Protein backbone atom coordinates (compact mmCIF):
# COMPACT_ATOMS: atom_id res chain seq x y z
CA UNK A 1 0.00 0.00 0.00
CA UNK A 2 1.29 3.46 -0.88
CA UNK A 3 2.16 5.74 1.97
CA UNK A 4 0.51 9.07 1.40
CA UNK A 5 2.52 12.08 2.44
CA UNK A 6 0.33 14.85 3.77
CA UNK A 7 2.21 17.72 2.10
CA UNK A 8 3.26 16.01 -1.12
CA UNK A 9 4.37 18.60 -3.66
CA UNK A 10 3.46 21.60 -1.50
CA UNK A 11 5.89 24.49 -1.14
CA UNK A 12 6.30 25.84 2.37
CA UNK A 13 8.13 28.71 4.03
CA UNK A 14 9.11 28.10 7.65
CA UNK A 15 10.77 30.82 9.72
CA UNK A 16 12.98 30.15 12.71
CA UNK A 17 14.35 26.86 11.35
CA UNK A 18 17.68 26.80 13.13
CA UNK A 19 16.39 25.44 16.41
CA UNK A 20 13.48 24.21 18.48
CA UNK A 21 10.02 23.94 17.00
CA UNK A 22 11.04 25.33 13.61
CA UNK A 23 13.77 22.77 13.23
CA UNK A 24 11.36 19.96 14.05
CA UNK A 25 8.83 21.36 11.56
CA UNK A 26 11.56 21.24 8.95
CA UNK A 27 12.02 17.52 9.58
CA UNK A 28 8.33 16.67 9.70
CA UNK A 29 7.38 18.79 6.69
CA UNK A 30 10.21 17.30 4.62
CA UNK A 31 9.17 13.78 5.67
CA UNK A 32 5.68 14.63 4.47
CA UNK A 33 6.84 15.65 1.01
CA UNK A 34 6.97 19.44 1.26
CA UNK A 35 9.55 21.56 -0.55
CA UNK A 36 10.80 24.09 1.95
CA UNK A 37 12.32 27.53 2.14
CA UNK A 38 14.04 27.18 5.50
CA UNK A 39 14.41 30.64 7.00
CA UNK A 40 16.93 31.46 9.71
CA UNK A 41 18.53 34.63 10.99
CA UNK A 42 22.09 33.98 9.89
CA UNK A 43 24.14 31.63 7.76
CA UNK A 44 24.43 28.31 9.57
CA UNK A 45 26.55 25.37 8.42
CA UNK A 46 24.97 22.89 10.77
CA UNK A 47 21.54 23.79 9.42
CA UNK A 48 22.73 23.49 5.82
CA UNK A 49 24.12 20.02 6.43
CA UNK A 50 20.76 19.02 7.89
CA UNK A 51 18.91 20.53 4.94
CA UNK A 52 20.98 18.54 2.45
CA UNK A 53 20.41 15.35 4.40
CA UNK A 54 16.64 15.90 4.64
CA UNK A 55 16.41 16.87 0.99
CA UNK A 56 18.16 13.70 -0.09
CA UNK A 57 16.34 11.42 2.31
CA UNK A 58 12.85 12.63 1.39
CA UNK A 59 13.43 13.72 -2.21
CA UNK A 60 12.29 17.30 -1.65
CA UNK A 61 13.80 20.69 -2.47
CA UNK A 62 14.98 22.60 0.59
CA UNK A 63 16.68 25.97 0.39
CA UNK A 64 18.06 28.07 3.19
CA UNK A 65 16.90 31.68 3.29
CA UNK A 66 18.73 33.97 5.70
CA UNK A 67 17.39 37.22 7.03
CA UNK A 68 17.03 39.08 10.28
CA UNK A 69 13.29 39.51 10.84
CA UNK A 70 13.73 43.05 12.12
CA UNK A 71 15.79 44.19 9.14
CA UNK A 72 13.24 45.07 6.49
CA UNK A 73 15.85 45.44 3.75
CA UNK A 74 17.05 41.91 4.40
CA UNK A 75 13.45 40.75 4.47
CA UNK A 76 12.82 42.22 1.01
CA UNK A 77 15.88 40.47 -0.38
CA UNK A 78 14.66 37.20 1.16
CA UNK A 79 11.24 37.60 -0.44
CA UNK A 80 12.92 38.25 -3.81
CA UNK A 81 15.04 35.17 -3.35
CA UNK A 82 11.94 33.07 -2.66
CA UNK A 83 10.16 34.63 -5.66
CA UNK A 84 13.07 33.89 -7.93
CA UNK A 85 12.48 30.15 -7.48
CA UNK A 86 9.24 30.60 -9.42
CA UNK A 87 7.37 28.01 -7.42
CA UNK A 88 3.91 28.72 -6.00
CA UNK A 89 3.95 29.29 -2.25
CA UNK A 90 1.31 27.13 -0.57
CA UNK A 91 2.22 27.40 3.09
CA UNK A 92 3.75 29.98 5.41
CA UNK A 93 4.66 29.05 8.97
CA UNK A 94 5.53 32.10 11.05
CA UNK A 95 7.42 30.35 13.77
CA UNK A 96 10.38 32.60 14.58
CA UNK A 97 9.99 34.56 17.76
CA UNK A 98 11.59 35.61 21.00
CA UNK A 99 10.56 35.23 24.59
CA UNK A 100 10.63 37.83 27.30
CA UNK A 101 9.82 37.28 30.94
CA UNK A 102 9.41 40.26 33.21
CA UNK A 103 6.84 41.47 35.67
CA UNK A 104 4.55 44.19 34.41
CA UNK A 105 6.20 46.88 36.52
CA UNK A 106 9.68 45.74 35.51
CA UNK A 107 9.19 45.55 31.74
CA UNK A 108 11.29 48.12 29.95
CA UNK A 109 10.23 50.16 26.97
CA UNK A 110 13.16 48.81 24.91
CA UNK A 111 12.18 45.20 25.62
CA UNK A 112 8.50 45.87 25.03
CA UNK A 113 9.32 47.43 21.65
CA UNK A 114 11.75 44.68 20.74
CA UNK A 115 9.34 41.85 21.64
CA UNK A 116 6.48 43.41 19.70
CA UNK A 117 8.84 44.10 16.81
CA UNK A 118 10.08 40.51 16.48
CA UNK A 119 6.92 38.61 17.44
CA UNK A 120 4.28 40.79 15.83
CA UNK A 121 5.41 43.53 13.43
CA UNK A 122 8.04 41.58 11.52
CA UNK A 123 5.92 38.48 10.82
CA UNK A 124 3.02 40.81 9.98
CA UNK A 125 5.01 42.59 7.28
CA UNK A 126 6.58 39.34 6.05
CA UNK A 127 3.11 37.79 5.77
CA UNK A 128 1.92 40.76 3.70
CA UNK A 129 4.66 40.08 1.16
CA UNK A 130 4.01 36.34 1.06
CA UNK A 131 0.24 36.67 0.78
CA UNK A 132 0.72 38.86 -2.29
CA UNK A 133 2.59 35.97 -3.89
CA UNK A 134 0.08 33.38 -2.65
CA UNK A 135 -2.85 35.27 -4.16
CA UNK A 136 -1.29 34.90 -7.61
CA UNK A 137 -1.88 31.15 -7.31
CA UNK A 138 -5.35 31.32 -5.87
CA UNK A 139 -4.57 31.08 -2.20
CA UNK A 140 -2.47 29.55 0.51
CA UNK A 141 -2.27 28.59 4.07
CA UNK A 142 -0.85 30.59 6.97
CA UNK A 143 0.03 29.08 10.34
CA UNK A 144 1.21 31.45 13.05
CA UNK A 145 2.87 30.18 16.17
CA UNK A 146 1.28 32.13 19.00
CA UNK A 147 1.22 30.98 22.64
CA UNK A 148 -1.20 30.07 25.39
CA UNK A 149 0.26 33.18 27.06
CA UNK A 150 -1.46 35.16 24.32
CA UNK A 151 -4.83 33.88 25.50
CA UNK A 152 -4.42 33.40 29.22
CA UNK A 153 -2.42 36.35 30.52
CA UNK A 154 0.22 34.94 32.83
CA UNK A 155 2.31 36.59 35.51
CA UNK A 156 5.61 37.76 34.06
CA UNK A 157 4.31 37.32 30.52
CA UNK A 158 2.47 40.58 29.93
CA UNK A 159 4.73 41.68 27.09
CA UNK A 160 5.29 38.31 25.46
CA UNK A 161 1.61 37.43 25.88
CA UNK A 162 0.52 40.74 24.38
CA UNK A 163 2.75 40.17 21.34
CA UNK A 164 1.15 36.75 20.82
CA UNK A 165 -2.37 38.07 21.47
CA UNK A 166 -1.70 40.58 18.72
CA UNK A 167 -0.77 37.72 16.39
CA UNK A 168 -3.97 35.84 17.27
CA UNK A 169 -6.12 38.88 16.58
CA UNK A 170 -4.42 39.68 13.29
CA UNK A 171 -4.74 36.06 12.18
CA UNK A 172 -8.50 36.02 12.73
CA UNK A 173 -8.88 39.33 10.89
CA UNK A 174 -6.75 38.07 8.03
CA UNK A 175 -8.86 34.93 7.83
CA UNK A 176 -12.02 36.99 7.51
CA UNK A 177 -10.50 39.34 4.92
CA UNK A 178 -9.00 36.72 2.66
CA UNK A 179 -10.95 33.52 3.32
CA UNK A 180 -12.92 34.00 0.13
CA UNK A 181 -9.65 34.36 -1.82
CA UNK A 182 -8.50 30.90 -0.80
CA UNK A 183 -6.35 31.90 2.15
CA UNK A 184 -6.72 29.99 5.40
CA UNK A 185 -5.06 31.41 8.52
CA UNK A 186 -4.81 29.77 11.92
CA UNK A 187 -2.70 29.94 15.06
CA UNK A 188 -1.13 27.31 17.21
CA UNK A 189 -0.90 28.16 20.89
CA UNK A 190 1.82 25.97 22.35
CA UNK A 191 1.78 25.60 26.09
CA UNK A 192 4.98 24.86 27.91
CA UNK A 193 7.24 23.13 25.40
CA UNK A 194 10.73 21.68 25.78
CA UNK A 195 12.86 24.23 23.84
CA UNK A 196 15.65 26.70 24.57
CA UNK A 197 12.95 29.23 25.45
CA UNK A 198 12.42 27.30 28.69
CA UNK A 199 15.89 28.34 29.80
CA UNK A 200 14.38 31.65 30.80
CA UNK A 201 12.16 29.89 33.38
CA UNK A 202 13.18 28.43 36.71
CA UNK A 203 12.82 24.67 37.26
CA UNK A 204 10.27 25.46 39.95
CA UNK A 205 8.05 27.46 37.61
CA UNK A 206 8.33 24.73 34.97
CA UNK A 207 7.28 22.04 37.44
CA UNK A 208 4.38 24.13 38.65
CA UNK A 209 3.23 24.68 35.08
CA UNK A 210 3.41 20.95 34.33
CA UNK A 211 1.19 20.35 37.35
CA UNK A 212 -1.32 22.75 35.83
CA UNK A 213 -1.70 20.63 32.70
CA UNK A 214 -4.15 17.73 32.45
CA UNK A 215 -1.51 15.60 30.78
CA UNK A 216 1.26 16.20 33.39
CA UNK A 217 4.19 16.54 31.06
CA UNK A 218 5.96 19.18 28.99
CA UNK A 219 5.14 19.48 25.32
CA UNK A 220 7.70 18.30 22.80
CA UNK A 221 8.72 20.10 19.65
CA UNK A 222 7.15 17.16 17.75
CA UNK A 223 3.78 17.99 19.27
CA UNK A 224 3.88 21.52 17.89
CA UNK A 225 5.37 20.53 14.55
CA UNK A 226 2.64 17.90 14.08
CA UNK A 227 -0.04 20.49 14.85
CA UNK A 228 1.56 22.70 12.19
CA UNK A 229 1.42 19.73 9.83
CA UNK A 230 -2.29 19.33 10.57
CA UNK A 231 -3.08 23.01 9.99
CA UNK A 232 -0.82 23.29 6.94
CA UNK A 233 -2.30 20.22 5.27
CA UNK A 234 -5.68 19.48 3.74
CA UNK A 235 -6.58 17.60 6.92
CA UNK A 236 -7.83 20.97 8.18
CA UNK A 237 -9.31 22.29 4.92
CA UNK A 238 -12.44 23.67 6.64
CA UNK A 239 -10.66 25.18 9.64
CA UNK A 240 -9.75 28.86 9.55
CA UNK A 241 -9.46 31.77 11.96
CA UNK A 242 -8.88 29.38 14.85
CA UNK A 243 -6.39 28.96 17.66
CA UNK A 244 -5.34 25.37 18.27
CA UNK A 245 -4.01 24.98 21.79
CA UNK A 246 -1.31 22.34 21.93
CA UNK A 247 -0.78 22.56 25.64
CA UNK A 248 -1.80 19.33 27.36
CA UNK A 249 -4.73 21.43 28.59
CA UNK A 250 -2.86 24.00 30.61
CA UNK A 251 -4.82 26.08 33.08
Amino acid at each position, binding site marked *: *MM*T*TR*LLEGKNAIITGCARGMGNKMLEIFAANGANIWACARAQNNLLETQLRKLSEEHQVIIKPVYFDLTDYDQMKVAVKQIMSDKRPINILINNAGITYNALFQMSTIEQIRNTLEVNFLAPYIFTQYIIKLMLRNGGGNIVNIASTAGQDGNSGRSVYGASKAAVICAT*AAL*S*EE*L*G*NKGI*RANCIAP*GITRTDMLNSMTEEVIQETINN*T*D*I*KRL*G*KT*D*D*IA*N*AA*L*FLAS*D*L*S*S*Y*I*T*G*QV*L*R*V*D*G*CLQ
Partner: protein
Amino acid sequence: MILKGKNVVITGCLQGIGKSSMEYFASQGANIWACALAPNDGYEDFCKELARNNGVFVKPVYFNLLNNDEIKSAVKSIQSDKLPVEGLVNIAGMAKDALFNMVSMDTLKNIFEINFFSQIYFTQFITKLMLRNGKGSIVFVSSISALDGNVGQLAYSSSKAALIGAMRTMSKELASKGIRVNAVAPGVINTDMNRIVPSEVINDKIKKMDIKRLGEAEEVAKTLAYLISDISDYVTGQVLRIDGGIR
Protein backbone atom coordinates in the same frame (compact mmCIF):
# COMPACT_ATOMS: atom_id res chain seq x y z
CA MET B 1 -1.10 6.91 7.11
CA ILE B 2 -1.79 8.61 10.39
CA LEU B 3 -4.01 5.87 11.85
CA LYS B 4 -2.12 2.80 10.76
CA GLY B 5 -3.07 -0.14 12.98
CA LYS B 6 -5.22 1.94 15.35
CA ASN B 7 -8.38 0.26 16.62
CA VAL B 8 -11.21 2.75 16.72
CA VAL B 9 -14.87 2.70 17.72
CA ILE B 10 -17.04 5.07 15.66
CA THR B 11 -20.72 5.66 16.39
CA GLY B 12 -23.33 7.02 13.99
CA CYS B 13 -21.85 5.29 10.98
CA LEU B 14 -24.90 4.95 8.76
CA GLN B 15 -24.58 8.34 7.11
CA GLY B 16 -23.03 11.80 7.07
CA ILE B 17 -19.99 12.48 9.22
CA GLY B 18 -19.98 8.93 10.61
CA LYS B 19 -19.91 7.27 7.23
CA SER B 20 -17.24 9.66 5.94
CA SER B 21 -15.19 9.00 9.04
CA MET B 22 -15.31 5.26 8.42
CA GLU B 23 -14.07 5.81 4.88
CA TYR B 24 -11.30 8.18 5.86
CA PHE B 25 -10.20 6.20 8.92
CA ALA B 26 -10.05 2.97 6.90
CA SER B 27 -8.03 4.74 4.19
CA GLN B 28 -5.58 5.75 6.91
CA GLY B 29 -5.16 2.19 8.10
CA ALA B 30 -7.50 2.11 11.11
CA ASN B 31 -9.46 -0.95 12.20
CA ILE B 32 -13.03 0.05 12.92
CA TRP B 33 -15.99 -1.02 15.01
CA ALA B 34 -18.67 0.68 12.96
CA CYS B 35 -21.58 1.36 15.29
CA ALA B 36 -25.06 2.05 13.99
CA LEU B 37 -28.65 1.81 15.12
CA ALA B 38 -29.43 -0.94 12.59
CA PRO B 39 -28.16 -1.83 9.15
CA ASN B 40 -29.65 -0.02 6.18
CA ASP B 41 -29.53 -1.27 2.62
CA GLY B 42 -25.97 -1.99 1.61
CA TYR B 43 -24.39 -1.14 4.97
CA GLU B 44 -22.82 -4.51 5.57
CA ASP B 45 -21.53 -4.69 2.01
CA PHE B 46 -20.10 -1.21 2.48
CA CYS B 47 -18.27 -2.39 5.63
CA LYS B 48 -16.90 -5.47 3.86
CA GLU B 49 -15.74 -3.48 0.86
CA LEU B 50 -14.05 -0.91 3.07
CA ALA B 51 -12.23 -3.70 4.90
CA ARG B 52 -11.16 -5.43 1.71
CA ASN B 53 -10.04 -2.29 -0.16
CA ASN B 54 -7.95 -1.01 2.71
CA GLY B 55 -6.74 -4.23 4.27
CA VAL B 56 -8.30 -3.39 7.62
CA PHE B 57 -10.81 -4.89 10.04
CA VAL B 58 -14.27 -3.31 9.87
CA LYS B 59 -17.00 -4.79 12.04
CA PRO B 60 -20.55 -3.51 12.14
CA VAL B 61 -21.93 -3.21 15.67
CA TYR B 62 -25.62 -2.43 16.18
CA PHE B 63 -27.27 -0.87 19.16
CA ASN B 64 -29.90 1.66 20.07
CA LEU B 65 -28.41 4.42 22.20
CA LEU B 66 -31.72 4.54 24.09
CA ASN B 67 -31.33 0.97 25.26
CA ASN B 68 -28.77 0.33 27.99
CA ASP B 69 -28.88 -3.43 27.53
CA GLU B 70 -28.08 -3.08 23.85
CA ILE B 71 -25.21 -0.75 24.73
CA LYS B 72 -23.82 -3.36 27.12
CA SER B 73 -23.98 -6.17 24.61
CA ALA B 74 -22.37 -3.93 21.99
CA VAL B 75 -19.48 -3.34 24.37
CA LYS B 76 -19.18 -7.09 24.93
CA SER B 77 -19.10 -7.67 21.21
CA ILE B 78 -16.30 -5.10 20.86
CA GLN B 79 -14.43 -6.65 23.77
CA SER B 80 -14.75 -10.14 22.28
CA ASP B 81 -12.51 -9.16 19.38
CA LYS B 82 -9.62 -8.90 21.83
CA LEU B 83 -8.08 -5.89 20.13
CA PRO B 84 -6.92 -2.98 22.28
CA VAL B 85 -9.44 -0.15 21.85
CA GLU B 86 -7.40 2.99 21.18
CA GLY B 87 -9.91 5.44 19.80
CA LEU B 88 -13.55 6.38 20.27
CA VAL B 89 -15.38 8.84 18.07
CA ASN B 90 -18.87 9.68 19.32
CA ILE B 91 -20.75 10.91 16.29
CA ALA B 92 -24.26 9.50 16.71
CA GLY B 93 -26.67 12.26 17.56
CA MET B 94 -30.01 13.76 16.83
CA ALA B 95 -31.52 17.19 16.27
CA LYS B 96 -35.07 18.33 16.73
CA ASP B 97 -35.62 22.02 16.23
CA ALA B 98 -38.13 24.18 18.08
CA LEU B 99 -38.08 27.68 19.55
CA PHE B 100 -37.29 27.92 23.24
CA ASN B 101 -40.87 28.46 24.38
CA MET B 102 -42.14 25.67 22.17
CA VAL B 103 -39.74 22.92 23.25
CA SER B 104 -41.62 20.17 25.00
CA MET B 105 -39.98 18.55 28.00
CA ASP B 106 -40.33 15.22 26.26
CA THR B 107 -38.32 16.42 23.29
CA LEU B 108 -35.69 17.97 25.53
CA LYS B 109 -35.32 14.79 27.58
CA ASN B 110 -35.25 12.62 24.52
CA ILE B 111 -32.52 14.68 22.84
CA PHE B 112 -30.45 14.69 26.02
CA GLU B 113 -30.93 10.96 26.34
CA ILE B 114 -29.45 10.34 22.90
CA ASN B 115 -26.93 13.17 22.58
CA PHE B 116 -25.67 13.17 26.13
CA PHE B 117 -26.64 10.50 28.70
CA SER B 118 -26.27 7.44 26.53
CA GLN B 119 -23.06 8.71 24.97
CA ILE B 120 -21.56 9.17 28.40
CA TYR B 121 -22.80 5.71 29.41
CA PHE B 122 -21.26 4.09 26.32
CA THR B 123 -18.05 6.11 26.74
CA GLN B 124 -17.68 4.91 30.34
CA PHE B 125 -17.53 1.31 29.14
CA ILE B 126 -15.12 2.06 26.30
CA THR B 127 -12.90 4.13 28.59
CA LYS B 128 -12.60 1.15 30.94
CA LEU B 129 -11.27 -0.89 28.03
CA MET B 130 -8.86 1.88 27.04
CA LEU B 131 -7.51 2.17 30.57
CA ARG B 132 -6.26 -1.40 30.30
CA ASN B 133 -3.83 -0.32 27.59
CA GLY B 134 -3.01 2.97 29.27
CA LYS B 135 -3.54 4.87 26.05
CA GLY B 136 -6.47 6.19 24.13
CA SER B 137 -8.13 9.14 22.48
CA ILE B 138 -11.79 10.07 22.72
CA VAL B 139 -13.50 12.66 20.55
CA PHE B 140 -17.02 13.99 20.95
CA VAL B 141 -18.76 15.59 18.03
CA SER B 142 -20.33 18.71 19.50
CA SER B 143 -21.46 21.66 17.39
CA ILE B 144 -20.85 25.37 16.94
CA SER B 145 -24.42 25.86 18.14
CA ALA B 146 -23.24 24.60 21.55
CA LEU B 147 -20.75 27.47 21.64
CA ASP B 148 -22.65 30.19 19.81
CA GLY B 149 -26.31 29.30 20.28
CA ASN B 150 -28.63 28.93 17.31
CA VAL B 151 -32.24 30.02 16.89
CA GLY B 152 -34.53 27.02 17.17
CA GLN B 153 -31.90 24.66 18.56
CA LEU B 154 -32.48 24.87 22.30
CA ALA B 155 -32.44 21.12 22.84
CA TYR B 156 -29.69 20.29 20.37
CA SER B 157 -27.32 23.10 21.36
CA SER B 158 -27.66 22.50 25.08
CA SER B 159 -27.13 18.74 24.73
CA LYS B 160 -24.01 19.41 22.64
CA ALA B 161 -22.81 21.99 25.18
CA ALA B 162 -23.20 19.38 27.90
CA LEU B 163 -20.78 17.17 25.99
CA ILE B 164 -18.18 19.92 26.09
CA GLY B 165 -18.47 20.20 29.87
CA ALA B 166 -18.12 16.45 30.17
CA MET B 167 -15.17 16.42 27.80
CA ARG B 168 -13.26 19.02 29.82
CA THR B 169 -13.82 17.14 33.05
CA MET B 170 -12.91 13.81 31.48
CA SER B 171 -9.68 15.33 30.18
CA LYS B 172 -8.80 16.42 33.71
CA GLU B 173 -9.52 12.96 35.10
CA LEU B 174 -8.09 10.84 32.29
CA ALA B 175 -5.27 12.69 30.50
CA SER B 176 -2.71 11.78 33.14
CA LYS B 177 -3.73 8.13 32.62
CA GLY B 178 -2.95 8.32 28.93
CA ILE B 179 -6.42 9.04 27.62
CA ARG B 180 -6.88 12.29 25.75
CA VAL B 181 -10.37 13.73 25.40
CA ASN B 182 -11.35 16.42 22.90
CA ALA B 183 -14.36 17.67 20.99
CA VAL B 184 -14.96 19.09 17.57
CA ALA B 185 -17.56 21.72 16.80
CA PRO B 186 -18.59 21.41 13.17
CA GLY B 187 -20.32 24.34 11.54
CA VAL B 188 -22.76 23.94 8.69
CA ILE B 189 -21.83 20.65 7.06
CA ASN B 190 -23.32 19.32 3.85
CA THR B 191 -25.17 16.36 5.39
CA ASP B 192 -28.74 15.08 5.57
CA MET B 193 -29.16 16.84 8.92
CA ASN B 194 -28.76 20.20 7.16
CA ARG B 195 -30.64 19.33 3.99
CA ILE B 196 -33.93 20.10 5.76
CA VAL B 197 -32.77 23.63 6.63
CA PRO B 198 -34.29 26.29 4.29
CA SER B 199 -31.84 27.57 1.69
CA GLU B 200 -32.20 31.21 2.84
CA VAL B 201 -30.98 30.19 6.26
CA ILE B 202 -28.05 28.26 4.76
CA ASN B 203 -27.11 31.16 2.47
CA ASP B 204 -27.25 33.52 5.40
CA LYS B 205 -24.81 31.30 7.29
CA ILE B 206 -22.47 31.05 4.30
CA LYS B 207 -22.27 34.85 4.17
CA LYS B 208 -20.97 34.80 7.74
CA MET B 209 -18.15 32.38 6.95
CA ASP B 210 -14.57 33.30 6.03
CA ILE B 211 -14.58 30.34 3.62
CA LYS B 212 -17.79 31.00 1.71
CA ARG B 213 -19.08 27.45 1.37
CA LEU B 214 -20.55 24.58 3.37
CA GLY B 215 -18.18 22.10 4.92
CA GLU B 216 -18.06 18.52 3.71
CA ALA B 217 -18.39 15.51 5.99
CA GLU B 218 -14.95 14.35 4.92
CA GLU B 219 -13.42 17.57 6.22
CA VAL B 220 -14.81 16.80 9.66
CA ALA B 221 -13.59 13.21 9.33
CA LYS B 222 -10.02 14.39 8.68
CA THR B 223 -9.95 16.52 11.82
CA LEU B 224 -11.33 13.58 13.79
CA ALA B 225 -8.49 11.50 12.36
CA TYR B 226 -5.99 14.09 13.56
CA LEU B 227 -7.42 14.04 17.09
CA ILE B 228 -7.49 10.23 17.25
CA SER B 229 -3.98 9.88 15.82
CA ASP B 230 -0.72 10.13 17.74
CA ILE B 231 0.19 13.36 15.98
CA SER B 232 -2.12 15.17 18.41
CA ASP B 233 -0.46 13.57 21.44
CA TYR B 234 -0.31 16.83 23.41
CA VAL B 235 -3.80 18.04 22.52
CA THR B 236 -6.43 17.39 25.16
CA GLY B 237 -9.39 19.22 26.69
CA GLN B 238 -9.90 21.23 23.49
CA VAL B 239 -12.81 22.09 21.24
CA LEU B 240 -11.83 22.46 17.59
CA ARG B 241 -14.19 24.47 15.44
CA ILE B 242 -14.51 23.07 11.92
CA ASP B 243 -16.68 25.82 10.60
CA GLY B 244 -14.98 27.70 7.77
CA GLY B 245 -14.53 30.61 10.17
CA ILE B 246 -18.19 31.36 10.89
CA ARG B 247 -18.84 34.60 12.79
